[in-house]
């Protein structure tokens, strides 16, 4: 009976400890705004095929006879093309919606991959001072020193097989390139946290009763580090979404005809067609802004709740 009571008390305490944070985050103004914005973007990504089906316009389909005027210039917004068309007569709205998919499909896996790799490196570096730490920290420094875009360009060249065809899928390559740079931030963060934790009495206590180091790292230290790292994931995600757009803008990321906000904006700029048809630029531009703003707002909302000083 008493066991049951304490168990219940524990459960209740856990509830109180866990849910107020979540509730506080949901109550925080900027986090809530961010969640709404991101919700809209996710919905847009999910509903992209529906929009394509409703309008009958595939994302890469060209409607030169309907969407281009006689002089070859794209038409503006109309009942059939809500945001007008681009230079190839493709539906800007449908492409913008499909762009949301690419943005999330690159940003989320890249950030997660970076989190996993960086946290692993940081755990080991922080836990084993001396040579292991020095070597891993040097590795982190080296990765940080590479200039992002130029290295990405070299990696794209590296990806070209003997016949000129890419070896791995270009979208996958963008994910890999971004995580190749982003893991360093997670590694530094985790290492710093672990160095502090390592000197706490519970580590010594666990080691003295014969807990294996692996178990100690995975079962004791990792759970202590994970919340902070998870918050940082939310902070890093919009940065990586922008990185994908930048690479695609420069022509090294997601390749045409696949719609990405970056390569859509690049096309609008290169052809200067946005001067006649602003939605060609504004569609992907606003979508990009809303997405990044939404994630930034969530990130700062979480930080406001967890760490009111910062």
């Amino acid at each position, binding site marked *: 009976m008493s066991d049951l009571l304490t168990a219940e008390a524990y459960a209740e305490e856990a509830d109180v400890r866990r849910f107020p944070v979540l509730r506080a985050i949901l109550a925080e103004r900027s986090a809530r705004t961010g969640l709404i914005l991101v919700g809209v973007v996710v919905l847009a990504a999910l509903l992209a095929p529906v929009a394509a089906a409703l309008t009958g316009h595939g994302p890469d389909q060209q409607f030169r006879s309907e969407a281009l005027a006689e002089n070859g210039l794209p038409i503006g917004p109309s009942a059939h093309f809500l945001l007008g068309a681009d230079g190839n007569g493709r539906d800007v709205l449908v492409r913008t919606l499909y762009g949301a998919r690419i943005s999330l499909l690159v940003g989320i896996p890249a950030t997660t991959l970076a989190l996993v790799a960086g946290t692993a490196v940081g755990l080991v570096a922080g836990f084993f001072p001396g040579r292991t730490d020095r070597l891993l920290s040097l590795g982190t420094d080296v990765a940080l*020193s*590479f200039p992002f875009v*130029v290295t990405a360009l070299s990696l794209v060249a590296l990806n070209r097989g003997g016949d000129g065809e890419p070896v791995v899928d270009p979208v996958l390559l963008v994910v890999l390139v971004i995580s190749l740079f982003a893991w360093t931030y997670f590694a530094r963060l985790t290492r710093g946290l672990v160095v502090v934790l390592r000197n706490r009495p519970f580590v010594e206590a666990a080691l003295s009763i014969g807990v294996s180091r692996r178990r100690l790292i995975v079962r004791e230290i990792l759970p202590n580090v994970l919340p902070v790292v998870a918050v940082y994931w939310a902070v890093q995600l919009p940065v990586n979404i922008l990185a994908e757009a930048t690479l695609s803008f420069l022509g090294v990321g997601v390749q045409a005809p696949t719609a990405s906000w970056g390569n859509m904006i690049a096309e609008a700029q290169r052809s200067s067609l946005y001067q006649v048809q602003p939605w060609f630029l504004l569609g992907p531009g606003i979508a990009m802004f809303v997405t990044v703003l939404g994630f930034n707002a969530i990130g700062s909302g979480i930080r406001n709740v967890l760490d009111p000083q910062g």
Partner: protein
Amino acid sequence: MRRHIAGHAARALATLLAVLVITFAMTRVAYRNPAAVLAPRNATQETLDGITRALRLDEPWYLQLWHYLYRGPDIQGAPMGLFNWPPALGYSFRQQRPVTELILSKIPVTLSLALGALVIWMTLSILFGVAAARRPDSWVDRILSALSYAGLSVPTFLTGILLSYFLYFTLSTYGIRWFPSSGYVGITENPFEWARHLALPWLTIAVAEIGIFQRVVRANMLDVLGSDYIRTARAKGVTERRVHFGHALSAALNPIITLGGLELAALMGGAIVTEQIFGLDGVGRLAVEAAVGGDFPVVIGTTILAAAIFVVSTFAVDVVTRLRDPAAR
């Protein structure tokens, strides 16, 4: 202190060496046959083999690396290795010029771009950050923080396009030609034209950076303003302006210097997007063109340059923050 600096310097050198070896290996695999790039279109296999031999591309990679470091490709007879005096970074296949010379010719553009942007974004961030920290949660704070969020959430390329659309294209349709669309004029030639040509690129970079820095300044100011010595300063009658800009700002400056140094280093490695949009012929553009065109000595050179600038500024930031911090001195 001295030992710490020596240790950091050794680490910086090791980092650079690792970057060099990795870039060298990577470009050697990525750009398979530079001989084909160099040779005329209808070259025979014999010519290709000759070029391959002349560039020592048939040797194992470690000999190539050694050769690169020590002598460089001696196309014109003069040694051009990194470990030579004067140190050089090899010879561009495409442009038929020494890489060091190419980079040096582009550096003024990138340096003007980065430093000018730094001055603008730091001034505005500090002003906005202090103004926001003065009355947290007031309408001033709300507006400034909304603006900095917006700056943070717009990709540089979009800012650049919008600025050039509104401030160049739209204005010029009304006959107002304040800003040119692209190009660069050296500061020694005509300082006014220099600033006029760089105004929009500076603004483009500054918008994104203010998004980051305004919040950092604000957060650090709030942190410092809560401390005892600020209360003491106020109690003894120091004016509010001096409290904010003198006492508090100077204490809040460390993280701003750290972050500023790193951002500046990243920009010096090539503000590639900004250079591209405004047609500035800087280091970033050089690097991108080389990477696209398979001119790997230039790729290696610009990568090393960017890494060196990054490593040196991390080092400098470390030294400066230590010098400013009495506890660590």
